[in-house]
């Protein structure tokens, strides 16, 4: 275990050093990930500001959801980049995954360490900025419980997205190519939770409650943090389910190990 952690740290620092080699290119790439979030949130902000909100949610309240989702997804996208289905799919297609399997070290650590996209720091910084704006503008009534719970929610959301990446990567063992439908789970859930869940048709809300239960990691906790009136109608335990859902990551890891046992190389 200790050995694996050391190895992971080693792989990560190699990644970082290589990405920092071209300073200007690195800065530009980092900026571009920030610009994407800035432009997307900017367009939402301009429109919500003009029309005074969306279904009773103010811009600041939407920013709470938005910042939470972008920050958690950004961190996940940086750390779990090796599992990003299109990236991982290439290892399977080119047969380089076979090389990893031959090495006598933990396979999960190797895949995690194979990619560490530092440029996502741009997206993360913007996500944090949006969240900070939301915290400040909403005048949240902080209680010790809320303060303690916030990092748990963030971390669960981060792990949850990571689990989705791992599932997507595992599926490429069978499909070889990464499948576009996986985007519905990853980018789809990240987009969906940028807004209050009440704006979606029932079947979409049910999908993100029972199939991909991301609703418990963002919408319900947000109701609790912001003291929204919808909280009264929600089941009282709903905002507090986030750590349980984060454990879903463990299931994803089980699936990953199951996939590795069944793995048949493409022969390339």
């Amino acid at each position, binding site marked *: 275990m200790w050995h694996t952690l050391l190895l992971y740290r080693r792989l990560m620092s190699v990644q970082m050093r290589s990405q920092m080699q071209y300073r200007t*290119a690195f800065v*530009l790439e980092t900026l571009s990930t920030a610009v994407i979030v800035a432009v997307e949130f900017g367009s939402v902000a301009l429109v919500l*500001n003009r029309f005074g909100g*969306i279904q009773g949610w103010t811009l600041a309240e939407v920013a709470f959801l938005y910042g939470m989702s972008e920050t958690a997804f950004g961190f996940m996208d940086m750390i779990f980049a090796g599992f990003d289905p299109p990236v991982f799919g290439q290892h399977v297609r080119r047969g380089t995954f076979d090389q990893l399997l031959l090495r006598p070290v933990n396979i999960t650590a190797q895949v995690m360490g194979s990619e560490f996209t530092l440029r996502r720091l741009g997206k993360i910084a913007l996500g944090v900025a949006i969240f900070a704006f939301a915290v400040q503008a909403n005048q949240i009534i902080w209680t010790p419980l809320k303060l303690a719970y916030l990092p748990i929610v963030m971390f669960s959301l981060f792990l949850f997205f990571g689990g989705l990446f791992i599932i997507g990567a595992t599926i490429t063992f069978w499909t070889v190519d990464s499948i576009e439908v996986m985007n519905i789970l990853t980018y789809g859930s990240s987009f*969906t939770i940028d807004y209050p869940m009440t704006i979606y048709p029932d079947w979409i809300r049910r999908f993100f409650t029972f199939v991909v239960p991301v609703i418990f990691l963002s919408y319900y906790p947000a109701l609790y943090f912001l003291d929204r009136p919808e909280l009264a109608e929600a089941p009282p335990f709903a905002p507090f389910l986030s750590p349980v859902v984060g454990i879903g990551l463990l299931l994803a890891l089980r699936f990953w190990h199951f996939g590795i046992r069944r793995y048949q190389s493409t022969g390339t």
Partner: protein
Amino acid sequence: MTFHSTTGRIARCPSQYLYPTMRLFWEFTVRSFQRHLTYRAAAVAGLVTNFFFGILRVSVLLAILGEQESIEGYGRAELFTYMALTQAIITYLSLFGWYDLMNAVHSGEIATDLLKPMGFVSFWLARDVGRAAVALLLRGVVIMALYSLFFDMVHPTSVAQVTAVAVSLILALLISFGFRFLLNLSAFWSPNARGIGRFGFTISWFFSGFLMPLAFFPAWVQQIAYLTPFPYALNVIVEIYTGQLTGPALWQTLCIQLLWGLLLFTLAHVTLRTAVKRLVILGG
């Protein structure tokens, strides 16, 4: 000079009546068309994802509309149409990114492309027209048909309007191509031009009306947007399709589209000339 085709298609295509360069253009377009046509399975697989994201996007717009009848000419039907059209057009205009030229520069493949007996910009345009035609048929039309099955949408009501949409679509491709070509030329200056590319495409989503219909933005944002070519590649197509742009305003819009298309195309030529002077091909 004659060009032989292995598919035997040449006898039937109208290219034999055209001037050699136009014939070359046609041949490159057809080759590109055939090559892209092989990705049929991907187009079908992409449908599910496209549909899902379309519904997510329109939910946001419908929620903003709320109880109101319409906002700036956009009612429920117009919003569904806006969503369907913008989703259908993603691949046609390569909205999510196009780095083919950039890759050709970085791999050195560009050296042989430059030797082809045809203008370099036209060569890429020919290939892009073939690609776009497939995107329009395999994705665009199918997506529009699928959305029409599920949602109440607004469609063109006259032959003239259909023609206007078609012309507008073609001009939009010219604008989009010019922009993408220029963006890709940055590869001549930077070995890592992807960041610049991503930056450019992101800006284009905002100003073209892909993220939100431009009419939803405050007036000052709209004014800035219409100073750029981007709304003429996307937002105006929606407004022509839904019948919001008619009469003299429609003619004016089509003319501006044409002007932007020609301007970007010329700019591409001029910038390329400077770029090629800097080109160094390493290895072989």
